[in-house]
């Protein structure tokens, strides 16, 4: 019955400075609160929970606050269980076991985790390597796990790049096993686990009959279930890429997910130049010339993967969208002036929203 996982068990301690930067409000969530005068007016229940090194928040509407609390607790338990399984900070997690053993032998993997890793690899293929769950060693080389950013030498980079690349992950769907064809490879689900957890939490809410809820992970991955009473959609406000408390665009969401990537999350400055924590796995270097991307897609896993449009840039993303009709993207790119940024909105030419969904950016 020991379902509570230990929190904050970092294998490598993250210095407070970096933690602060990563927990700065990426955006704020406004949910309009309806007047509760009618007898059968829905109750609003909100709770937060620490997991996966971030804060999950669920807002849900229903008839009975007690019931909502029980359902939300069940969703948080599920998120903790995913954290215990997918953390690469916890040696006892299944992911750590895969990382330890898969270069030596094929490792049998839990079905849902296998599917998630398979989806990640497919995402990598579709995005030409702009999204890659093997990017961990690269992050370490740039000092992002130690909290002291540094620019690696070309030699260091070429050495570490031998241990990076989704094509080294071999999946056997029939046996449900994973094997690495090179030693030193590490899977890191940090870029996708939150979106996945948000999806699973939304599934639990839905399966318990909750039809109105917003699930948010660290404000960067969000799923909006239904819409608040009297509203047509949930309203999510993006932050200005330079000022945490200044509002940018607003996203309206119903039965849709949202994911944001921004260079404001983690970065270091050296010799007057700012290096973002978002790596281009193809070059081994931090991405430049993008401040943030916000992606709207039907599921959290998908929008988490696609938030790496950040890496593809505006033009690369435009080409990708031609074949993906349910995705919207908003780029903020630097203009060169202090505090200045340009806004580029992209959508597939054949954009087609599923029935009953809302997914819009409004300036």
């Amino acid at each position, binding site marked *: 019955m020991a379902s509570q996982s230990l929190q904050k068990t970092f*294998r490598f301690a993250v210095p407070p400075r970096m933690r602060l930067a990563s927990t700065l409000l990426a955006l704020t969530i406004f949910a309009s609160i309806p007047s509760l005068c009618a007898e059968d007016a829905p109750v609003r229940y909100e709770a937060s929970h620490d997991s996966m090194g971030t804060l999950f928040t669920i807002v849900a509407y229903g008839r009975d606050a007690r019931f909502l609390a029980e359902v939300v607790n069940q969703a948080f338990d599920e998120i903790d269980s995913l954290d215990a399984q997918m953390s690469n900070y916890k040696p006892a997690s*299944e992911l750590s076991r895969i990382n330890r053993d898969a270069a030596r032998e094929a490792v049998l993997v839990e079905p849902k985790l296998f599917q998630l890793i398979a989806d990640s690899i497919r995402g990598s293929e579709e995005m030409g390597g702009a999204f890659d769950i093997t990017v961990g060693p690269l992050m370490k080389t740039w000092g992002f796990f130690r909290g002291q950013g540094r620019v690696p030498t070309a030699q260091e980079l070429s050495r570490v790049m031998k241990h990076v690349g989704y094509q080294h992950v071999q999946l056997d769907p029939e046996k449900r096993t994973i094997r690495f064809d090179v030693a030193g490879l590490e899977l890191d689900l940090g870029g996708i686990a939150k979106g996945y957890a948000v999806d699973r939490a939304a599934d639990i809410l839905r399966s318990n009959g909750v039809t109105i809820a917003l699930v948010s992970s660290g404000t960067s991955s969000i799923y909006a279930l239904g819409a608040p009473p009297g509203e047509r959609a949930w309203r999510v406000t993006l932050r200005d890429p330079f000022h945490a408390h200044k509002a940018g665009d607003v996203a309206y969401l119903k039965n849709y997910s949202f994911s944001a990537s921004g260079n404001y999350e983690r970065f270091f400055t050296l010799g007057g130049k700012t290096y973002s924590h978002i790596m281009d796995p193809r070059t081994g270097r931090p991405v430049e010339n993008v401040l943030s991307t916000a992606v709207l897609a039907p599921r959290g896993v998908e929008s988490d993967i696609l938030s790496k449009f950040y890496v593809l840039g505006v033009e690369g993303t435009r080409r990708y969208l031609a074949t993906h009709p349910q995705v919207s993207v908003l780029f903020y790119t630097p203009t060169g002036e202090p505090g200045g940024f340009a806004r580029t909105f992209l959508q597939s030419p054949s954009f087609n929203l599923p029935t009953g969904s809302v997914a819009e950016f409004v300036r």
Partner: protein
Amino acid sequence: MEKDQDVTRREFLKTAATAAAVSALPAVGAPAIIASPSPSDAVGYGIIGTGTEGCTLLKFLTTIPEGRCLATCDIYPPNLKKGVETIGSNPQTYDEYHRLLDRKDIDSVLIATPLNLHAQMVVDALAAGKHVFVEKTMFFKEEEEKQIRDAAAAHPHQVLQIGLQRRSSVLYNVAMEMIRKGALGKITFVRANWHRNSDWRRPVPDPKFERLINWRMYREYSGGLMAELASHQIDVANWAIGAEPVSVIGTGGIDYWKDGRETCDNVQVIFEYPGGQKLVFTSILSNAHYGFQEQIMGDHGTLEITIGKGMYFREKVAKATGGAKENWWAGATVSDEATQKGIPIFPERVSSDEGFMDREMRLGRRWLASMGIYEYEEPHDPWWSELKNYFASIRENKPVAAPLEIGVADARGVIYGNRAVDTGQKVFWPKKQA
């Protein structure tokens, strides 16, 4: 007749596994390669009860190639569905566990049902010739101890393991070794808490399923917080002290969540052990600050331990040891670091044939940990380890991690603890038969 054949097949399986293990012993210096079993070698199992706990077991089981799920059983259709989704293969599903036990191709069952059902299911499964893993608490009523003992005695070649996963934790095993080697001195006191801040209920889609889903709230099926939470910690205290209690006093009530439940929403009990040691257990559902942990205290030090993490605090008072050879004290300096901040317990054993590189790596990890940049934890979730151990006991005759006697001592603690809370009287353990 069929049963005999079945047992023979299982015996063969065991013997074959042992023989394979022996013949696979590597030459000195060569790496040991133990191949994963092929599906045909795996132990076919069925699971009875696929609610929250059963599905947690199943999720871990999907990564253990030594077992293969052939059947699942639950009387609540949504749970049955959830179980099948979790395992991700195509087990046969049942709503009546005897039909699962009738299957001759199933060698092993795992039981994760409400507590009141454990004993009968264990007895029936053993009688059907199956190896049995049963969730803690092992049994519900005092008289069930004898039924299980008799069934186990009648089937001595079948494994019976209790789901007390701390027994399979490397961290806890290292902690117990520290205790045996004198790191805590003489143990006098164990404080254990399991605190939550929630109603401990699961959401119910329809009131008619209330008792089925929230069985933990009702005395007909459940021993409440004592059975579901204290059972883990009573076992830790029994393990650390090396005995089971002789008496218990306690109190508790339904004082916060007055929602129709019948089991207490808070309990406070004190167990006394033969040497005068005490275990104080508290469980509340209205404050989660202290979470769950055990603090094991001796006159030389304290262990603070929970799943995944353990700290050792040395007492400042160094005592004259009269020349006794106590490894933990010889030449050691008691620094404030050790007394106040504590030393993490490293769940890592030094093996006698440790190579140079292994040793260097081990010392390197400790050095990083001492600087606070590397937190050393055990390599596997104890839940996973206990299931891995279970199949190793079946296939390779490995000792059972949490066998009958441990489960019995634990269940008595739960039953007498609850009796003390209910009656307000001091409850004594029955005198042992000479």
